């Protein structure tokens, strides 16, 4: 247990030291979202219509940007090898690393979401639905994303391949999240969609760590 805490503390300290690099997915997130009014026009009605979808697509793309960094440095300098050679269980260590990654690069996106709801003129209930779907859905992004990152960490041009692998898998999450926010805009109940996202999240929380551990072992040449 102490070893897992040590991993978490180390990853958070590392993220703090490279915070300039951490800012980039956040700036990308705001930039992509502020492009849409310039493209589609500033009328609040149209912006509100496309708002949920735009925010969610932007969230998925910027989390993809940040995912690459999850195992890359540790793989290149050999710390991942030493981690695999320690008696701490690899799935637990992988889960802790995904948690550290979620805290450092995806949580800031959620903290920014009120500003973006402002940019796209989302109404109050829509914003709360968006926040709930983000809080439940983005850990799912990190967990499944980490599996693909574990598989492609050995290849040096894994970037586009990562998007290719992950985007199809994220489609159900995108569908349920945007439909939750839309039904919130019409003052309808959206707890069904939330329940489905929650189920997907718990399912991946249970299985993904083992898949990540296996993926890391596979990518050891």
């Amino acid at each position, binding site marked *: 247990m102490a070893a897992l805490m040590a991993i978490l503390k180390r990853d958070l300290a590392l993220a703090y030291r490279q915070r300039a690099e951490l*800012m980039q997915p956040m700036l990308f997130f705001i930039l992509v979202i502020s492009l849409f009014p310039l493209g589609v026009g*500033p009328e*609040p009605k149209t912006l509100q219509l496309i708002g949920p979808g735009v925010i969610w697509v932007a969230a998925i793309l910027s989390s993809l940007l940040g995912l690459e960094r999850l195992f890359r440095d540790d793989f290149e300098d050999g710390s991942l090898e030493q981690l695999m050679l320690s008696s701490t269980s690899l799935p637990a260590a992988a889960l802790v690393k995904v948690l550290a990654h979620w805290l450092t690069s995806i949580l800031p996106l959620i903290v920014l979401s009120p500003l973006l709801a402002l*940019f796209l003129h989302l109404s109050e209930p829509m914003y709360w639905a968006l926040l709930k779907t983000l809080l439940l859905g983005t850990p799912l992004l990190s967990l499944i994303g980490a599996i693909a990152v574990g598989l492609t960490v050995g290849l040096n041009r894994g970037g586009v391949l990562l998007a290719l692998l992950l985007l199809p898998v994220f489609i159900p999450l995108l569908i349920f999240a945007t439909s939750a926010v839309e039904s919130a805009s019409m003052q309808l109940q959206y707890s069904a969609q939330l329940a489905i996202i929650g189920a997907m999240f718990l399912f991946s929380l249970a299985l993904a760590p083992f898949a990540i551990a296996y993926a890391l072992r596979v990518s050891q040449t």
Partner: protein
Amino acid sequence: MWKWLHPYAKTERTYHLCQKLLPWFSLLGLAVILFASFWGLAFAPADYQQSDAYRIIYVHVPSAVLSKSLYITMAVSAFIGLVWQVKTSFMAMMALAPIGAMVTFVSLITGAAWGKPMWGTWWEWDARLTSQLILLFLFLGVISLYKAFEDKQQAGKAAGVMAVVGIINLPIIHYSVEWWNTLHQGATILKLGKPSMPAEMLWPLLLSILGWVIVCGAIFLLRMQNEILQREIRRPWVVALANKSSTLNEGK
């Protein structure tokens, strides 16, 4: 050419020049900005159309004007650095960038706060606010590019190129956003810029602009010293300076 400027390319002299000017700039700046803000807030007459909401102008216009001029100054010092290989101008550029970003951020907040009573929403895709937002992204782009490099010399040159590219694009962005805005919405009723104002409203505005310029100048001097110290951290004059200032602190 510009012979009298060359000694200042030598960093140690620039450092001591900044040290001499710093107290003057900071005290004067503080005084002028406080005086002007107080004058604008308390003594200037209320506006017949927006009553007292217009007083935000005493913060919004200086920061908006300053954000553009700081970007231009940054781009000019980047240009000097790239063309004449003057290292101190790269340092000046990187000293200016965070101040410009902060001032643009302030102009955005004050613009949004002023827009709320006028348009009813905190954020309105008005032409002026949108180009200020894009300007903020240009600033943040230059800063994050500078931070991405290990070696500061290389970082300065790369950020300098981006600053020059940015300055070329600034007017293009400005007019395309204006055109985009009129295309969709027609000119907004309230021109956010400098409406023709009676003298007793105008004087506090000019003074607050001056106040902002001096305060930003003071912060620039301080950040310039930081950039010099960062680049010359191994030099003997920096070591002597550090020892002298540490004995000074113990002495106090």
